[in-house]
């Protein structure tokens, strides 16, 4: 097996014209389990991500039952939750917090970071830049298995007696540091931290690989200015991850010290459970700074890949070039840079110096500009297109809709003076679930529908895909839009019930509606699951280029082997967005088509390029 690897490495590095086109017989284990093939690893990430998405979704359905129907008898959940159902048939309030925490952790890290970046960066980077595999297949494999181990630990933590971590996914100390403060801060929190440490290792291994691969292994002619926007998005995402996850690691490490070794990084002046703790001099705010230094780039780590996928899909299915390719890259770079200097907008009312609040307000509202550019450019791409509504396209349009709906509310929350009243209310919940939760989730689904034919060589069912889209799209809006009203009315998040407060006596009907919508939306995902798994085995065989797309992955065989292209790697001559070019025979021209083959549609400067093209061997390879 290692021999194969070396062979592949050489091929990739040297762009050899010949490649052994025979099957390397691999055993089941090295083919499907400890595989170093980026395509298999991507599928492993995807299927693991789907598992976690279901679990995270199921948790949200259970706590939505509590919020929507506070008087409901949940005795029937006892076989599943055991002692977490109280004798009155209610969810234990502490377990409610545990579920909220696990929902957040799972969705943000396991689904929308590993499941989204892990799947599509792995799958698309080599295929779209013309590489045989990742720079290091072995590190790539490690990346998955660290993620897997991290997941196992998180999963186990849900079944221990004291319950999993329950202090919210942001795990602010002292709550998360002191087992006396809540039972979830005992062993559950320790497991959370261990799991997250492994997760960070996985992310870093993956991220280094993505960056190296994009920089070093692009095929001949695939300059940075010809990269598809998906690759740009994955590339920038990986850089963000590489710079920010180590800071989370340090935050977690100091928290581990505070918990286990008696240090006082985050702890000071605490009296709890009948005793004054010896810790003095620490600052809980320090943790928040460290956490959000990761935490804010993290939301862009979640959304950028989704936006990259959307750019590709909207352009392909509008049969138009993406509008403002350079502006799209520029705005992603801008978002990437600014994402590191806005973290404290999560902390306006934590006691941080108000002057810092002013600075972070300014920086935060600046980041709205590149985000707005992206939204406008998507809409302009649709303008005068010839739009084909594949399920992937529908999900991409849905993403843009969510990105706008959730994005505009950022103008309230990013403005420190308005955040005073909205901080930690359901307004925040509505905001981030739309702009990064649902939007990134839709990006992931769009990606699955679009690249399923490349992943499994078969088509997913179009009708079921559309049904899935409409149920999910309407469902998501019904779940999250009403939360804005509840938030403006001041309802705090992470509340088990609102019965203690007269101020929050209203909106019981609306909360029930939200819960019903959540249950329906969750149920609709089973249509997708069925479509996904059934199509792997029973779907129609996919044509070579089902969406008539320009990017390189569609020049591989239906079932690409390890190494992706049976012969030499095709060369690239143009950008990825020559759709409906005036004069062209078809409404798409693949990146591998030389300008000298398309004199009828070339623009003036492209004719110049055509003259300089070296076409040695192109007919044979790019055929």
């Amino acid at each position, binding site marked *: 097996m290692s021999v194969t690897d070396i062979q592949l490495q050489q091929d990739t590095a040297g762009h050899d014209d010949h490649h052994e086109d025979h099957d390397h017989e691999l055993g089941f284990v090295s083919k499907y389990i400890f595989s170093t093939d980026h395509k298999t690893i991507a599928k492993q990430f995807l299927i693991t991500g789907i598992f976690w998405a279901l679990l995270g979704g199921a948790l949200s359905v259970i706590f939505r039952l509590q919020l929507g129907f506070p008087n409901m008898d949940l005795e029937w959940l006892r076989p599943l939750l055991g002692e977490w159902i109280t004798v009155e048939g209610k969810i234990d309030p502490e377990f409610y917090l545990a579920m909220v925490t696990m929902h957040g952790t799972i969705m943000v890290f396991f689904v929308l970071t590993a499941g989204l970046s892990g799947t599509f960066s792995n799958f698309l980077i080599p295929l779209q830049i013309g590489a045989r595999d990742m720079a290091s297949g072995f590190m790539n494999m490690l990346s998955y298995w660290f993620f897997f181990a991290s997941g196992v630990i998180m999963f186990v933590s849900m079944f221990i007696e004291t319950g999993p971590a329950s202090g919210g996914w942001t795990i602010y100390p002292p709550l998360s540091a002191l087992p006396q403060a809540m039972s979830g801060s005992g062993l559950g929190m320790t497991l959370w931290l261990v799991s997250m440490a492994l997760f960070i290792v996985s992310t870093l291994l993956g991220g280094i690989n993505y960056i190296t691969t994009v920089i070093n292994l692009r095929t001949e002619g695939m300059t940075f200015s010809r990269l598809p926007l998906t690759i740009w998005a994955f590339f920038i995402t990986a850089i963000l991850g590489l710079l920010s996850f180590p800071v989370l690691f340090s935050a977690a490490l100091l928290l581990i010290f505070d918990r286990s070794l008696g240090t006082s990084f985050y702890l000071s002046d605490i009296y709890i459970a009948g005793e004054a703790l010896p810790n003095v001099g620490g600052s809980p705010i320090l943790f928040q700074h460290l956490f959000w230094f990761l935490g804010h780039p993290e939301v862009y780590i979640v959304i950028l890949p989704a936006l990259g996928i959307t750019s590709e899909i909207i352009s392909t299915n509008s049969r138009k070039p*993406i509008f403002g390719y350079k502006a799209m890259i520029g705005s992603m770079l801008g978002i990437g840079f600014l994402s590191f200097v806005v973290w404290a907008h999560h902390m306006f009312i934590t006691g941080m110096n108000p002057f810092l609040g002013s600075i972070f*307000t300014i920086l935060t509202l600046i980041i709205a500009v590149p985000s707005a550019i992206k939204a406008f450019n998507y809409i302009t791409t649709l303008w005068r297109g010839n739009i084909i509504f594949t399920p992937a396209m529908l999900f991409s349009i849905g993403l843009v809709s969510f990105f706008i709906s959730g994005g505009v509310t950022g103008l309230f929350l990013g403005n420190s003076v308005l955040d005073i009243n909205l901080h930690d209310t359901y307004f925040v919940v509505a905001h981030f679930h739309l702009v990064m939760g649902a939007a990134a989730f839709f990006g992931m689904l769009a990606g699955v529908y679009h690249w399923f034919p490349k992943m499994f060589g078969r088509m997913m*069912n179009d009708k079921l895909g559309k049904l899935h889209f409409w149920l999910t799209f309407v469902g998501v809006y019904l779940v999250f839009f009403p939360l804005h009203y509840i938030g403006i009315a001041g309802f705090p998040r992470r509340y088990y019930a609102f019965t203690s407060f007269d101020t929050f006596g209203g909106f019981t009907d609306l909360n029930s509606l939200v819960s019903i919508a959540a249950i329906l939306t969750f149920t609709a995902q089973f249509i997708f699951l069925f479509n996904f798994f059934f199509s792997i085995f029973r779907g129609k065989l996919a044509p070579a280029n089902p969406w008539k797309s320009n990017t390189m992955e569609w020049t591989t065989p239906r079932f690409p082997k390890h190494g992706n292209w049976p012969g030499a790697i095709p060369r690239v001559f143009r950008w990825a967005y020559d759709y409906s070019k005036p004069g062209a025979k078809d409404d798409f021209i693949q990146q591998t088509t030389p300008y000298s083959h398309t004199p009828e549609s070339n623009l003036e400067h492209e004719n110049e390029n055509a003259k300089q093209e070296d076409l040695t061997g192109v007919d044979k390879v790019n055929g």
Partner: protein
Amino acid sequence: MLNLIIVVAVILVVAVLIIAFRVTNLVDVVKPKQKDADTNVPSGNSAQGVLMIVFLVVGTIGFFYYSKTEFDSYNLPIASEHGVITERLFWITMVITVFVFVVTQIFLFGFSWKYRYKKTNTAHYYPHNNKLEMIWTFVPAVVLAWLIISGLKEWSKITGPAPEGSEVIEVMGYQFAWAFRYPGKDGDLGKVDFRKIDAVNQMGLDLSDRKGHDDFMPTQLVIPKDKPVHLQIRGRDVIHSVYNPHFRLQMNAVPGLPTRFWFVPTVSTAEMRDKTGNPDFNYELVCNKICGKSHFGMKGIITVLEQDEYDSWYKEQQENSWLKQNPDYLSQVPNELREAAIIASGLEINVEQIESSAQGSSK
């Protein structure tokens, strides 16, 4: 029985999905292929565009209808001076964002419908337009700059130093309740030390500081109307957050990091009872930072009184200083301060009595 029904239901749903899958796949196979190159355009493409418009129209109507009819239930009456100003900025931002939101959604779904696939159409090759891109870079930038500037002016006022002569009150959050402390006769809060906290001395009053001898700790937060109230906030165990939506007031209560918030209440509890038509109305102090099992039950009552009512309430409370109610703690007062402490706290005993009782109760 229930389990059986669930199993049967699941089997039926899966069966329906399989059949739907097979039928639509077969129909696609059997259906006569169009001669042109649009075999990859799924049937019912236009219907999807129409559904987009339906969604847009129904969604927009629903949004405006609900926002209008339910306005009073989500828009709480304002009860503070700065609240009026932040509320104005809130609604200005709302107008701008709703405009952007509606217009962009109309374009998004409108274009999707209008430019849905038609065999005779060709997409317009339109890779970029620098002028257009400049416009939508600069217009949002200018609007945002304006929002920022108007917000920051207020932010620095609200978070700036409290005016001279504000009513200083300490609020402490702990699992799972609030404690309040008033400076008493001398107008100064005494020192606290978390090591002095015990079951009775909840707030950790440090009795070696004479300023604390007359401090009193009522069970409610009582504040005067139309006077700046300066809350000094701390947390005892984990982070809590002092929140009240009527005053548009929020500040975290952090252990080890004292925080503060000042505001001017403008509507008394009695007036708000009239206004809302709810004779039981109370301003509620909400904990808005996850703090453990009973986070959702961590409530305090805030009562806003007219100035004269407040003054007489204060006078009455002054007679009930914490030290007076817990005379045992006189033993913690240094000897040289005892006499002064007895006077300041209003204790009705003499020093000898205390010394004997202190000996009796010393641990």
